[in-house]
């Protein structure tokens, strides 16, 4: 099935034998008490994965899941219930469970009339998804990756590669009568290489993907780049020296190092934390939180990106939100509940992991706009510092603003030149403060290759980040060498 052949709003009605009348009655049941809002979220997800180790594709898997979540909101209270049995009876039970947060009494709610479709973007209208590509062909690519990585250097000892693809059909029906639906393809290629010499073992990783067709991996031989990048990183790390410890000047390379923005800025600007005033950024709109060189946006509307969505998981079309403009804090990321309580507009950032989860404000693709400097100028300007080009995960404490992100490939900068590779180290800083120390921003904005996963309150969603090369004048590097 290609994307266009599926009419997502019709899909659930026919697949599970629902009628609009039944949906109206369930929403009516959900609103029976004194509630402001209710919605139903239907999801049907199919996924396949395959992986290679020891030069053979020895693992394949597929999964099918479906379910419906019923949400009832009353003031700042949320009731949520879900079931993986999509039947009218189960949905009615879920509606009764979800409405328990609403108080008894109040006026009888107006009858819900379902039928107003919500406009949506067209960011990933694919001819076909990788799920329709024969498994043999997908397996062949993993074998090619294995060959290329091993040929890169005899010190490459093992290669693990995997490819996963999914298609999610979603439909949101709310008590305002709106129906929004979408078909959301997503895929991801991952390569991990372990290299070994007489000094020890090191690993390298690369990967990419998005809401893209299979051909994406062959444009500019992306697949080969991932194989080579992982192998090169593992080999480079074999010669890595201990990372320095303490505050120093750090240059972040373009692309994935944008995880800095995700941790340091993005989470702290999610609407829920700011409504509850539990974020280090609470009440600071209009204040300076970054240098004048920094403009940071969250944009869910970039075609084919991993973090992009035609509609968010509450049915709101996604948008581009300016978070920081020339260093001044401008906006928050909102879902419907927090936007309503803060008397702001939803920004299309209400997201959830699946039908088993209630939506929250989440990021989409978060990045910094490019500046004036060339990356060479930036590196040349540093006498002594660290050049970090690849990162693993990061984390933030929203309330005190402290965040970390861990470099997986980094080099020393000595007298303006990139010299020796250093071992991975965690960088730690303070969200409302770190971007005030950004004194140079490159003209080389890159978005990450499409592997990001963000966890919040037990829910994981795919996200994107992006960054031009930037210079941070002082941040603490958690190495082992003084």
């Amino acid at each position, binding site marked *: 099935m290609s994307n266009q052949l599926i009419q997502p709003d019709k899909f659930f009605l026919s697949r599970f034998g629902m009628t609009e009348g039944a949906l109206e009655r369930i929403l009516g049941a959900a609103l029976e008490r004194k509630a402001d809002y209710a919605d139903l979220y239907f999801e049907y997800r199919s996924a396949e994965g*395959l992986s290679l*180790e020891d030069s*053979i*594709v*020895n*693992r*394949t*898997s597929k*999964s*099918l*899941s*479906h379910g419906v979540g019923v949400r009832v909101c009353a003031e700042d*209270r*949320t*009731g949520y*219930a*879900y079931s*993986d*049995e999509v*039947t009218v009876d189960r949905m009615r039970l879920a509606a009764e*469970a*979800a409405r328990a*947060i609403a108080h008894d009494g109040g006026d009888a709610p107006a009858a819900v009339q379902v039928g107003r479709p919500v406009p949506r973007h067209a960011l990933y209208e694919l001819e076909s998804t990788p799920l329709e590509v024969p*498994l043999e062909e997908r397996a062949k690519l993993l074998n090619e990756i294995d060959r290329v990585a091993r040929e890169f250097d005899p010190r490459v*000892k*093992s290669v693990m590669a995997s490819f996963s693809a999914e298609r999610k059909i979603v439909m949101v029906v709310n008590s305002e009568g709106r129906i929004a639906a979408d078909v959301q393809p997503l895929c991801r290629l991952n390569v991990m290489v*372990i290299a070994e010499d007489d000094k*020890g*073992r*090191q*690993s390298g990783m690369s990967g990419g993907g998005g809401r893209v067709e299979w051909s994406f991996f062959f444009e500019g031989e992306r697949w080969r780049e991932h194989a080579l990048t992982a192998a090169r990183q593992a080999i480079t790390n074999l010669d890595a020296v201990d990372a320095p*410890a*303490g*505050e120093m000047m750090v240059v972040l390379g373009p692309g994935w190092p944008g995880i800095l923005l995700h941790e340091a800025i993005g989470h702290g600007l999610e609407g829920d934390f700011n409504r*509850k*005033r*539990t974020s280090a950024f609470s009440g600071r709109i209009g204040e300076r939180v970054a240098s004048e060189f920094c403009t940071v946006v969250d944009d869910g509307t970039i075609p084919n990106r991993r973090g992009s969505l035609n509609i968010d998981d509450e049915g709101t079309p996604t948008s581009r939100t300016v978070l920081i403009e020339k260093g001044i804090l401008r906006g928050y990321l909102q879902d419907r509940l927090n936007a309503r309580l803060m008397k702001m507009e939803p920004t299309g950032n209400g997201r959830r992991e699946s039908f088993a989860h*209630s939506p929250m404000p989440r990021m989409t693709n978060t990045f910094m706009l490019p500046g004036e400097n060339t990356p060479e100028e930036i590196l040349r300007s540093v006498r002594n510092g660290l050049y970090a080009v690849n990162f*693993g*995960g*990061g*984390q933030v*404490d929203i*309330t*005190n603003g*402290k965040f*970390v992100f*861990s470099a997986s490939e980094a080099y020393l900068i000595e007298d303006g030149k990139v010299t020796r590779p250093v*071992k*991975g*180290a*965690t960088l*730690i*800083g303070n969200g409302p403060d770190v971007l005030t120390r950004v004194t140079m921003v490159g003209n080389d904005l890159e978005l990450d290759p499409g592997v990001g996963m963000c966890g919040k309150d037990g829910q994981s969603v795919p996200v994107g980040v992006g960054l031009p090369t930037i210079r941070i004048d002082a941040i*603490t*590097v*958690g*190495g*082992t060498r*003084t």
Partner: protein
Amino acid sequence: MSSVEPGVDLAQWGLEQARAAGADAAEVLIASGESLSAGVRMGEVEKLKSSRERRLGVRVFVGKSSATASTAEFERKALGEFVADTVRLARLTAPDQWSGLPDPALHPRMVPELELSDPTSGIIEAGRALEIARTAERAALGADSRIKNSDGAEFDSGNYRVVFANSQGFAGEYAGTTYSLAVAPIAAENGAMQTGHWYTQNRRFDGLEEAASVGLTSAKRALRKLGARKIKTTRAPIVFDPDMAAGLLRALAGAVSGPSLYRGASFLVGRLGTEIASAGVTIIDDGTMRGGLGSKPFDGEGLPITRKSVVERGVLSTYLLDSYSARRLGLASTGNAARSVGDAPSVSPTNLYLQPGAYSPEEIIRTVKRGLYVTELIGFGINSVTGDYSRGASGMWIENGELAYPVEEITIAGNLKDMFMSIEMIGNDLAWRSATVAPTLKISEMMIAGE
């Protein structure tokens, strides 16, 4: 829709479908569960979440080729097609000489009763669950005038059921319950805010710590972080509180698990039978503990659960293995196959703990002239291939054996190989609040990066 709860009958029906579609061997796993989660914030109801889920997973073998799959579809006809599809998928998968079910002689004849379920409490209904959460948060908010805000309190209760059968005649099932309460008040002073987290978790409702006491502890943890400062970069002894010490154990468990070892992705490759920790360190994995949060009567391949020392007086005495990684390493499974529905087996510890020592946490802190008491760690700065360790930390600075002031925005770094070898003191304060636990630990020296 089937009206009866899916059980061993359905699993065996699934095995027949696999056989009919041409599979030489197969496994079926069915996991189901229900839960209710109740959250309050600033004394008011914030959220109620009610869940009900069940999934069926299969793994099929055609010769040495295999595939796995999972579905939420329980209607027989669709399920039969799904299983047949999985067999087709296996035929497209490369044969792997190490693949296969475990040796059938190893399946247990009797499955032990491990008291995984609370016999009387069931799922706690919303009103009572909210009241427990409210009690905990109220205690936190009332603890001190500087506790001005809250990230809320949440009470969860749930049950689950696992059914497993394979084509060589093993079939078993078990059920369990879990109860938990977590509180996160926020203290504020001079424009700075700090969250304190505390929680309790048990398989029995009456095994939970008192709600008010959980609230008070969370408040104390928030309050002691107020006024935290950054310190100068230095080397110093590090005392890990029990929760942070448990994190070190989790990293070790990853490094001694079969898949990381045969892939060469562990800093402990080739270290079996050698000293990997200081002599006082004994680490035990015991899946047979009655009521243990990580206990189960058989593992993810239907093999008996075991109790063994992973580290015995500093010496690495066993890896954690499932059948596949055991065959690859020329060893026997240790009964540590873990299973998520629809995936091939992975490896995980069951109840993993570091045997407590003789010292109270206060005694340990008293031995430190100047050093760090770590109470929170953030980030993913652990490289399991090399053992390199670098994480964001906060806690209390120790001066002359006393907790002097809170510190934050620093990192601690070293290598796990050295860190385990330099565990200098072990606390007597082991408490079972999760499936992996440790007492307070003192490591003789690590690098602290700050200003």
